[in-house]
């Protein structure tokens, strides 16, 4: 077992004929991912990378069994593509696109809430179960099948975490993305790792801003028994320029790295203060 995806996962690619879609679909196929169809409005009926291309997701669903879709369409049209996938009731939607206007994501989040779909991203590397299935833009070669589950808000930090845990390998790595409004959050991923028999240790990589790490800490206290190693990026970041008060008012001065570290430590999480500490901590737990 693994989390969310495995060797049988059948994948659709929305935005397959664009340059990014083309490149990463090829990479995915090379890795062995079961990408079975693509969508590009206006190019229906053609084939691309030997895969059938359709105008709409609904047409795809009439001809294929789809478990997951990956979205590479440009930012201006990405929210629309997510909603099309939700309408088609695709269980897992992975949106790689970065730069989606935040207000486009508000209706997406509203509609997801009452849907049967899960969203990973946007603005994320995607999800990989090494040697079985890779959905997204992560470099497949650095991964190795193993027993460390990784969840991260940042793209490259996921890769560093993978590198740091190369001794043990990974069950599944999920990049949830750093956009203000995104789909799966730490809590959902921790829940899945907790119940995944292939995962023995969880690495959780957070960032300053928002309160997702604090909420995760609260959740961990009651609902996660597996050991967790956590690093929070941004301890050294300056408060940053800002003109308005509203952000500070709503967060009430919360969301600093120190707040997050404290909350996680209270929940029994093994925190590390530099990236370089991730590997050590995992090794110690699995020793």
């Amino acid at each position, binding site marked *: 077992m693994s989390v969310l995806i495995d060797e049988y996962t059948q994948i659709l690619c929305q935005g397959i004929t664009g340059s990014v879609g083309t490149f990463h679909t090829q990479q995915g196929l090379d890795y062995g991912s079961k990408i079975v169809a693509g969508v590009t409005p206006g190019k229906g009926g053609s084939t691309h990378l030997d895969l059938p291309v359709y105008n709409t997701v609904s047409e795809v669903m009439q001809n294929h069994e789809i478990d997951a879709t990956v979205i590479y369409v440009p930012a201006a049209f990405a929210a629309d593509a997510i909603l099309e996938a939700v309408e088609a009731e695709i269980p897992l939607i992975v949106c790689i696109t970065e730069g989606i206007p935040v207000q486009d994501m*508000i209706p997406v989040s509203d509609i997801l809430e009452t849907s049967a779909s899960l969203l990973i991203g946007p603005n994320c590397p995607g999800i990989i179960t090494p040697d079985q299935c890779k959905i997204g833009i992560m470099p497949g070669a650095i991964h190795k099948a193993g027993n460390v589950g990784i969840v991260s808000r940042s793209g490259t930090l996921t890769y560093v975490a993978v590198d740091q845990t190369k001794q043990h390998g990974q069950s599944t790595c999920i990049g949830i993305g750093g956009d203000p409004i995104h789909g799966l959050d730490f809590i959902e991923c921790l829940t899945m790792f907790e119940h995944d028999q292939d995962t023995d240790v969880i690495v959780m990589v957070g960032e300053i801003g928002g309160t997702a790490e604090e909420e995760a800490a609260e959740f961990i206290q009651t609902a996660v028994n597996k050991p967790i190693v956590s690093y929070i990026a941004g301890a050294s970041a300056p408060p940053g320029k800002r003109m308005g008060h509203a952000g500070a008012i709503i967060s009430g001065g919360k969301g600093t790295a120190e707040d997050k570290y404290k909350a996680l430590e209270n929940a029994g999480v093994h925190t590390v203060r530099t990236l370089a500490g991730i590997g050590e901590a995992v090794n110690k737990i699995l020793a």
Partner: protein
Amino acid sequence: MYIHEYQSKRLLHTYEIPVPRSEVFTQGDSIEKFVANFGGESWIVKAQVHAGGRGKAGGILWTHTKEELKQQIDKLMGTRLVTKQTDAVGLPIQTLLVEKPANIKREIYLGLLVDRASKKITAIASAEGGINIEEVAETSPEKIASVNIHKTSGVQGYHCRLLAQDLNLNKAQFKQFSHILRQMYALFLDSDASLIEINPLIVAEDESLLALDAKMNFDDNALFRHKKIASLKDTSQENPIELKAKQHDLNYVKLDGSIGCIVNGAGLAMATMDLIKHNGGEPANFLDVGGNTTAQRVTQAFNLLIDDESVRSIFVNIFGGIVRCDVIAEGILQALEETELTLPVVVLLQGTNAEQGKEILKGKHQLITAVSELTEGAKLAIEKAGGQS
């Protein structure tokens, strides 16, 4: 993207939200002509810069006569304003807002923003508006009312009632407050704003509500569909290096330290700063060249750091993903050929083909030291910059 107070107020006016009578004086306008149009009334001259704390910094001046008005305009225009929210250089004053003073009875705060946690637009209000609102939020959070506005319903009566609960508004004021909130919300949606604040929203002597100051921020990712908003951009208010970075689509923030950082990915860039600080150094910048970077972008990054005189050494930290480290290594060597860099450069390459990359760099260029590990890299960069700052 931030805009000036006078631009915010024009937008509010377009959305039928009451603002004080005012005129805008732009650098190059004739002071004589401008002042000639005003009577002997009192006016406030407000420096238009992208920073708060203008009042205490001398950027907001009162005048009572034409002569005074002339003098104050002359005094502010073309200078730089340093406030607690700017750096030591300050921001250039190229526009002045000359505004009719209002008689303030009370100051209210009213704001709208996109809230991460609820994934909704949130409205915030407080009877304790004015410059101390952040302090109020921290020390007396019970004095701040907030409510989420579902996009499916838009602003409803209950949102207005909930926010106004502790504002002590009479019936006419509540009606005006509701109107202002609905119009602010319409503006928020129409313009892809990420923040709209009216602070203070005052109760004037005549008992009516008036937006005395306004701050707005717009989603950069949505500017492509808001040409008019995008045209309000004032690049004179931005750090020149940051501006140049943006033109090259590099994510750069100027900091106070001496170690320049070139990193791929925002998370890794922050983590690299953390690492430098953790080992006793001070980063000169945050610089993200993009998750899947190219050799070309690394070159642009070098060019950017050359302009920053406080940089003493450069730490290049690249995690090779889709782009292989050997390609990046070649790119770094080429970049050093092309630029006039004379600073020591510490390079850490990890991920795809990291070993080959390191091999390529070894002994090829006197400025470059290739390292194998994060902490090693950070420490060496600090050392090359001349030790702990």
